């Protein structure tokens, strides 16, 4: 029988004023196995801790109970003291006779003392069954992966790399930059997007610790925090990027011109080339759907024009396996297809465009060279109607949430419009103006007061052409008047949506999504960039609508979490986790279904029976992933799964002790 020591604290009069601590210590001494029991005024004081250390050493204690305050107060103190005296810190139990006894039963010394006896007794039974435990140590691969190379991913990659850790940046498109690369000028300061983005892209491109895997997608992830194995699919570009010098001769020669998604339908691109001139890596790719050669026609123009013979029509996709310790997901957002709102006529009338198209128009490298022109006839529009919340805050037809950025970018659009067409008029239909951010409200006010935008509180119900104008029928609820505007151009502030493949991504990386498909954080307020999968982080618009400043802040937040993780050689995990007895395990996998963290994996045990190999399914707990909740233990009908520190027999022993002592006291 293990030798147990009990130490009852007076906590001055906090405990001793109500509980007869001497009696508690005496009664405990009578429990079998308790070889030491004493009381003292302040157990947590240095002399108190010394008493404990001396007793452990002198009496070779194999478990101690400190009957004192709540474990949230001093459990670490007493565990450290025990460890210093040579006892395993997990063989220390606290019996909470202050918060849960003396303080709540001040008027009944007898009852409080009885209760204290019960509490301490249960703790003795528990500690008697405590095994010495040591934290698991997991080696860490000191390398990170960032998935998605928009502003968020770039910022995160740079921060991690600047902390000294190698980073692989996986980007689905042929260039990094994300949505920000499409923007013209950015609120709230109106600095030009490419002026602040291009240098960052270049920095990513040349950082010695950042390995850029463009035109690539993650296929599969296995392993766990500290040691993920990631399979990345590199799609064929049909250009040997190592040989290519980025001269873009090929792009100039290519005869196949197609509508450019990057230009939001306002411009075209070639079947070979880059989306925009500042692309990083600055290498062309062939779009196989539109390349004449790849569709079986006769065309070798790019290949013939290439001075270094880099075109490779035969190129095939490659699968690359990488090992990383931590992963940041920053794959950003999409926009609601506006065809959903048929009443606005997007897609039907060329002069109804979405906000991203407006950005492209205003971009000096865009299809109109930065001039605002009607797509239908190239005229400069004099009356422009902006419709906010187009598909946002619209649980019926669009998205139920507020897209958060459109109020601000619409104000920006109206401002930019006024700067380019001073005698034009911008009308903005809005539901509310949401401008919570540093300088944001002031920006909106300037848009009204200095840049002449007329805000109309209400939505538009219908848009249709009338002559060469577009008739916009809306309402101004402030004046209770229906409003008609004969507009030259209508701009829809389209709802931000999750990437169409977000749920698939979430599945690959084992993170949750909300009902819309935005990735979930571990805790929306206090762990905003962590996910419930240790080692996987989220940042930026992949979590929900965000502007650049929020996205960049989260990127740095996630990067610092990654750096924190990678800064350690090994990762210590709490030993109070689940443990399977393979002998008892029947392989039913009930525990797997119960585990909220996917910490349990199946595995097969093979055994030789005579000359046959029999294999049997059991499970294994991933120590890096298990959080120690114990849900699996209850699910296991075979009693094979147990939780260290909270084993079935320990809890049952507590139950029995409580009932026994209470019974004896009646």
């Amino acid at each position, binding site marked *: 029988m293990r030798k147990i020591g009990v130490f009852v604290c007076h906590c001055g009069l906090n405990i001793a004023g109500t509980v007869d601590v001497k009696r508690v210590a005496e009664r405990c001494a009578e429990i079998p196995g308790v070889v030491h029991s004493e009381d003292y005024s302040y157990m947590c004081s240095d002399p108190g801790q010394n008493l404990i250390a001396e007793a452990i050493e002198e009496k070779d204690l194999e478990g101690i109970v400190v009957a004192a305050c709540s474990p949230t107060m001093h459990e670490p103190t007493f565990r450290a003291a025990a460890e210093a005296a040579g006892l395993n810190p997990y063989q220390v139990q606290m019996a909470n006779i202050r918060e849960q006894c003396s303080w709540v039963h001040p008027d009944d010394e007898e009852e409080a003392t009885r209760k204290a006896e019960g509490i301490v007794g249960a703790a003795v039974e528990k500690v008697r069954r405590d095994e010495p435990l040591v934290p698991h140590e997991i080696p860490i691969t000191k390398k990170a992966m960032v998935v998605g190379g928009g502003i968020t991913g770039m910022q995160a990659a740079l921060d991690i790399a600047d902390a000294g850790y190698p980073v692989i940046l996986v980007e689905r498109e042929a260039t990094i930059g994300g949505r920000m690369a499409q923007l013209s000028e950015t609120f709230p300061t109106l600095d030009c997007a490419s002026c602040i983005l291009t240098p960052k892209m270049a920095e990513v491109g040349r950082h010695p610790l950042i390995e850029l895997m463009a035109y690539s997608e993650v296929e599969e992830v296995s392993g766990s925090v500290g040691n993920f194995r990631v399979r990345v699919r590199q799609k064929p570009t049909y250009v040997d990027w190592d040989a290519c010098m980025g001269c873009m001769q090929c792009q100039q020669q290519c005869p196949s011109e197609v509508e450019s998604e990057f230009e939001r339908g306002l411009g075209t691109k070639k079947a070979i080339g880059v989306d925009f001139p500042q692309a990083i890596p600055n290498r062309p790719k062939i779009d196989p759907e539109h390349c004449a050669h790849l569709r079986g026609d006769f065309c070798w123009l790019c290949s013939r024009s290439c001075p270094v013979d880099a075109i490779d029509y035969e190129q095939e996709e490659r699968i690359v396996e990488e090992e990383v310790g931590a992963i940041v997901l920053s794959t950003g957002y999409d926009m609601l297809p506006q065809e959903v709102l048929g009443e606005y006529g997007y897609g039907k009338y060329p002069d109804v465009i979405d906000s991203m198209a407006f950005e492209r128009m205003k971009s000096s490298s865009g299809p109109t060279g930065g001039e605002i022109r009607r797509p239908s006839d190239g005229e400069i529009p*004099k*009356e422009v109607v902006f419709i906010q919340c187009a598909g946002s805050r619209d649980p019926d037809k669009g998205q139920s949430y507020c897209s958060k950025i459109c109020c601000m970018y619409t104000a920006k659009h109206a401002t930019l419009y006024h700067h380019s067409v001073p*005698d*034009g*008029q911008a*009308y903005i239909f809005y539901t509310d103006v949401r401008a919570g951010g540093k300088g944001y409200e002031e920006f909106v*006010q300037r848009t*009204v*007061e200095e840049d*002449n935008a*007329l805000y109309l*509180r209400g939505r538009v119900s219908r848009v249709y052409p009338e002559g060469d104008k577009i008739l916009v029928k809306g309402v*101004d609820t*402030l*004046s209770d*008047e*229906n*409003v*008609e*505007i*004969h507009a030259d151009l209508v701009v829809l502030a389209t709802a931000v949506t999750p990437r169409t493949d977000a749920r698939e991504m979430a599945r690959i990386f084992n993170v949750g999504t909300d009902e819309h498909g935005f990735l979930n954080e571990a805790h929306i307020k206090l762990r905003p960039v962590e996910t419930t999968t240790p080692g996987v982080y989220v940042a930026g618009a992949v979590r929900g609508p965000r502007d650049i400043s929020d996205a960049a802040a989260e990127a740095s937040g996630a990067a610092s979490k990654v750096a924190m993780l990678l800064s350690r050689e090994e990762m210590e995990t709490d030993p109070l986790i689940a443990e399977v007895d393979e002998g008892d395990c029947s392989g039913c996998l009930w525990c797997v279904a119960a585990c909220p963290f996917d910490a349990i994996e199946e595995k097969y045990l093979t055994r030789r029976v005579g000359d046959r190999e029999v294999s049997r399914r059991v499970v294994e707990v991933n120590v890096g992933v298990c959080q120690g909740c114990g849900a699996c233990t209850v699910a296991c009908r075979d009693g094979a799964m147990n939780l260290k520190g909270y084993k079935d027999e320990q809890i049952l022993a507590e139950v029995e002790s409580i009932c026994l002592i209470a019974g004896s006291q009646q």
Partner: protein
Amino acid sequence: MKLTRHGLHSEMIEKIERISGEEISKCYQCGKCSAGCPVAQEMGTLPHRVVRHLQLGQDERAFEAEAVWFCTSCHTCESRCPKGFDLSRVMEALRAVLLRRGEAPVRPEDLPAELFAAAPQQAIVSCYRKYVS
């Protein structure tokens, strides 16, 4: 109501801005003025709504509002307006335009003599000021 850029920035709107010294666009329609206006309940059209009509270029709607004449120039709106917008001046500008057009709602000569017999000098002068000058 049809909105056009010319209508929004009509001569009349500019004139009202000139006379009042206030930029009509500054008001963001929070309604605090109306909430505190001591005579709002009499006005029919609340004070902030008068401003809204002007913002939409609907000056005639503003001129029609009885509010223009009910306004007592008490400055309650102005002293509490979060945007520092002086609505009492806009009301005065509207009255001024109407008076200059000869469109006073009452002519002083039509007023009952008893009124003047009892009223203090100050009341008589301000009454003339409101309806004549």
